[in-house]
């Protein structure tokens, strides 16, 4: 049997024979119901547009205050970096590092790698360093936690509003947008990119 014509469910290891699918169809595992294959819902151009938007929103989230308060004439601001920095005291720094990694660095690296891959993918090419980029993207996927940061911001607002007046900054709106787009991007099936550029660069 030719291995390439098989689809193996990554959850339960059930083997399925691959068939030609209609657009909008999706193949599900007949044993456990996992999605085996689906046609890409967005083409590379649209994905690149979404990823670039996410990158701009990410920059806004990182460089503007998400929350700020005014107490007796002193103004303090917070976003993801300041939250991580405020946890940098001795042992507690480990929590700060985890926060900075999962809610800022990992999403940033994901976005940069996606843009890097997509700029070439829309012309049907593999970028230089394609394999490394794809492997890093695969490894980072579980560790991207922007949505948890968004929920944390909302809880912090609710918590602090009992004592002080909390102002919501531009960063919160860009954070909300970023969360939605990252969720959309994480739904995309990226296995198909592995077949990019295999035949003289035309896909």
């Amino acid at each position, binding site marked *: *049997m030719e291995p390439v014509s098989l689809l193996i469910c990554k*959850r339960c*290891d059930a083997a399925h024979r691959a068939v030609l699918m209609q657009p909008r169809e999706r193949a599900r595992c007949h044993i456990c119901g996992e999605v085996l294959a689906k046609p890409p819902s967005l083409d590379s151009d649209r994905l690149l547009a979404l990823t670039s938007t996410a990158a701009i929103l990410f920059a806004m989230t990182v460089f503007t205050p998400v929350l700020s308060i005014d107490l007796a004439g002193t103004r303090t*601001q917070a976003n993801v970096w300041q939250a991580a920095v405020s946890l940098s005291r001795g042992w*507690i720094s480990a*929590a700060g590092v985890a926060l900075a990694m999962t809610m800022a660095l990992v999403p940033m690296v994901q976005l940069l790698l996606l843009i890097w891959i997509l700029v070439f993918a829309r012309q049907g090419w593999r970028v230089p360093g394609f394999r490394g980029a794809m492997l890093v993207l695969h490894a980072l996927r*579980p560790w991207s936690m922007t949505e948890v940061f968004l929920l944390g911001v909302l809880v912090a607002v609710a918590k602090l509003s009992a004592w002080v007046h909390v102002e919501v900054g531009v960063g919160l709106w860009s954070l909300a947008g970023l969360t939605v787009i990252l969720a959309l991007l994480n739904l995309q099936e990226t296995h198909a990119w592995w077949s990019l550029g295999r035949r003289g660069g035309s896909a």
Partner: protein
Amino acid sequence: MSIVRAHDVGVVACETCGWVLPEWAALEGRPCNRCGLLAHARRPRSLEKSLAWLAAGIICYLPANLLPVIYTSGIGGSQDSTILSGVVSFWRAGSWDIAALIFTASVAVPLTKFLGLGLLQWSARCGSDWARVSRGKLYRIVEFIGYWSMLDVVVVGLTCALLQFKTFEQAEPRVGIVFFCAVVITTMLSALSFDPRLIWDGRNRG
């Protein structure tokens, strides 16, 4: 109904890129010819690693709940708060919704993960054929709720960033938050080490 699985047709699926390669190649230790990583029929030492990370998570769960996570001082006096005392003070202040959210993310989610991962590992170790579809769903749930417990780390970080030394009300992080973070990371590693395909393996395979 008998299930035809990868082993029965002599292939192995690469977990990283989805490529299907012949089983003999994987057994010889040849890397996947699409992504270049080693393709394993099952994640190596899956149950051992998963159990070790789970044990580490359960050990960290005690100090995470017993030690204070934040220190606050202000007009109302100064105090160290644990996760649970934070939940209680929200409840008393009448914000039962926030109290429920923090309780769910910080106490219920880690406990669900412990129980879920324990059940998955134990039944896979026994090669049990009990409720396989539901156990597959349980694994997906454990994967999905994995990171939501980082919520409290974010809340403590933001609170401490906003209430600094220069303001009248002050907040400082306390060491409990590190253990809390460790619970999230170790249980995520436990779920990532567990190979869901083991759920479907019988006694004769492993």
